[in-house]
């Protein structure tokens, strides 16, 4: 703990880098997966193929990806972009499964009646289906965010920043305090970010936490008997 307090500004700097490396891939992944995931829902064969490809992508070990990307895209091995690209692949692979699943969770009769009322396809996707898919989508985004935060630390094995450097340095110097500081910082970061996403999700979906209000229904000008029936 001593080490963490003495080197707090160093840890804060590393945290910033860490967050950057974890969240930029998440955002890029969302930008790719939301439109693609929406589009592939229409054709079941396309959806199947995408799911298989995404499944395979996610099985590639992260360290292997960190090492091969530089030669494939022609970057320096120490370029942080390597980590960003690798994590973008993982994020997209996870989210491209999640987006169609989230859209599946939207009740079919709601989509059907929206169409019948005269929503255009685009307007329906943006104002009906996406908002209603949010609860499932946010749950998946939280998983991806936490996964990314933990995966960034692997990047330190190939010398790319983030809080993982506290592990590599602490190990080399045989200095457990530094390793402990790294563990605490990453866990706190992951928990804090998960909580933040949870709160954002709640704020975006106010209708999901409304309690059913049970009071005398308000049937103006009707007899008491039907009103009582509606309340039961």
């Amino acid at each position: 703990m001593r080490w963490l307090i003495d080197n707090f500004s160093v840890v804060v700097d590393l945290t910033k880098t860490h967050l950057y490396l974890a969240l930029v891939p998440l955002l890029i992944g969302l930008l790719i997966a939301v439109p693609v995931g929406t589009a592939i829902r229409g054709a079941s064969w396309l959806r199947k193929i995408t799911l298989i490809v995404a499944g395979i992508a996610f099985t590639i070990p992260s360290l292997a990806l960190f090492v091969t990307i530089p030669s494939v895209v022609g970057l320096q091995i120490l370029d942080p972009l390597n980590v960003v690209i690798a994590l973008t692949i993982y994020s997209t692979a996870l989210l491209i499964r999640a987006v169609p699943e989230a859209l599946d969770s939207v009740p079919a009769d709601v989509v059907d009646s929206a169409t019948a009322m005269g929503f255009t396809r685009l307007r329906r996707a943006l104002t009906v289906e996406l908002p209603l898919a949010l609860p499932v989508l946010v749950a998946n985004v939280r998983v991806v965010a936490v996964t990314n935060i933990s995966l960034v630390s692997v990047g330190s094995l190939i010398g790319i920043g983030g809080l993982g450097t506290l592990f590599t340095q602490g190990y080399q110097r045989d200095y457990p305090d530094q390793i402990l500081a790294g563990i605490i910082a990453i866990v706190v970061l992951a928990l804090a970010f998960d909580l933040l996403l949870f709160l954002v999700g709640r704020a975006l979906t106010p209708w999901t936490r409304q309690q059913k209000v049970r009071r005398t229904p308000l049937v103006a000008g009707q007899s008491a008997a039907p009103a009582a029936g509606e309340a039961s």
Partner: protein
Amino acid sequence: MITFSGVTKQYPDGTTAVDNLDLEIDAESFTVFVGPSGCGKTTSMRMINRMITPTAGTITVDGRDIAQTDAVKLRLGIGYVIQSAGLLPHRTVVDNVATVPVLRGDSRRNARKAALAVLERVGLDPALASRYPGQLSGGQQQRVGVARALAADPPILLMDEPFSAVDPVVREDLQAEMQRLQAEMRKTIVFVTHDIDEAVKLGDRVAVFGPGGRLQQYDAPDTVLSAPATDFVASFVGRDRGYRGLSFRTADQVPLHTIRTATEKELPALRLEQGEWVLVVTDAGVPRGWIDVTGVEGARAGRPVSECTAAGGSLFSPGSDLRQALDAAISSPSGIGVAVDAGGAVTGGILGSEVIAKLAEQRAAEDRARGEHFFTAQPATPDGP
């Protein structure tokens, strides 16, 4: 006016949902599509707003072939209500009702203001406006669904089993509301149901669909009950169709008899024969139940009136039909139906035998009328086509 000509819907697997349908739906009429599940009634309705495309035939709305129109524009002019109401769960009640006006380009502010007025019109408290649909009861949601369909004041309303998911009391309430609204607004309504009672109650015209998506009969509801066109219709409308048909006959001429009534205070003084019944009424004359000799003994022994009386039957109120008159008589423990005035006070008693006699009298008159038509060479169907 909505016209189906030669409309068929066949699915790639070979099943025929709708088979060569020819149908004319008059403007401002309340038309009910009725039939068992899988008979093509919903499919037929959903072809009107192009939610389903027919494989053959044409559908016109006010003379225009809908296949040539823009589907989105067409739908903006047709109100739509479904079984579960299909409300947008993430929008408040007022925004749900304002949906179509906003889609048509109204400002949100104006659309909301108009939506509040529509909510009141369908009998909902405007205080519900800021709730989410999930916070409402099933009956309330269904009312919001109707309000949403009416908000943009479309000339056509499509309703797909809108009241089948609510309990019977609420359903009856919603049906009455629908009749009231239709009397007020005169929309062209196409209403799908599997319930023949609901069909004959609400419809000006009833279209009975049968197996294989074939239209079996398209007639006024009393004709469907009294003269089923096919064996299928006869079996679908059921064994008690004769009894249901009574609801299309007036009971104005059924004679009222004076019945013995007594208030609670008068009970101990009553002297009754075995098998004799007296109607217990409140001071205002509202019926509370029937009492016989054993009941009177109980009342004398000091037991509360509610325990001494047999519950009354259904009540016959002014303007009711023969079905209600007969039901009042046969549901009453004394065999005498209780007639009440608009305020609920007893006006007299009805005898079942006289209800049947009245039916025979009306039929005889109709037969004579048909005979006269026949002899004067007029069309033999006085009810129209």
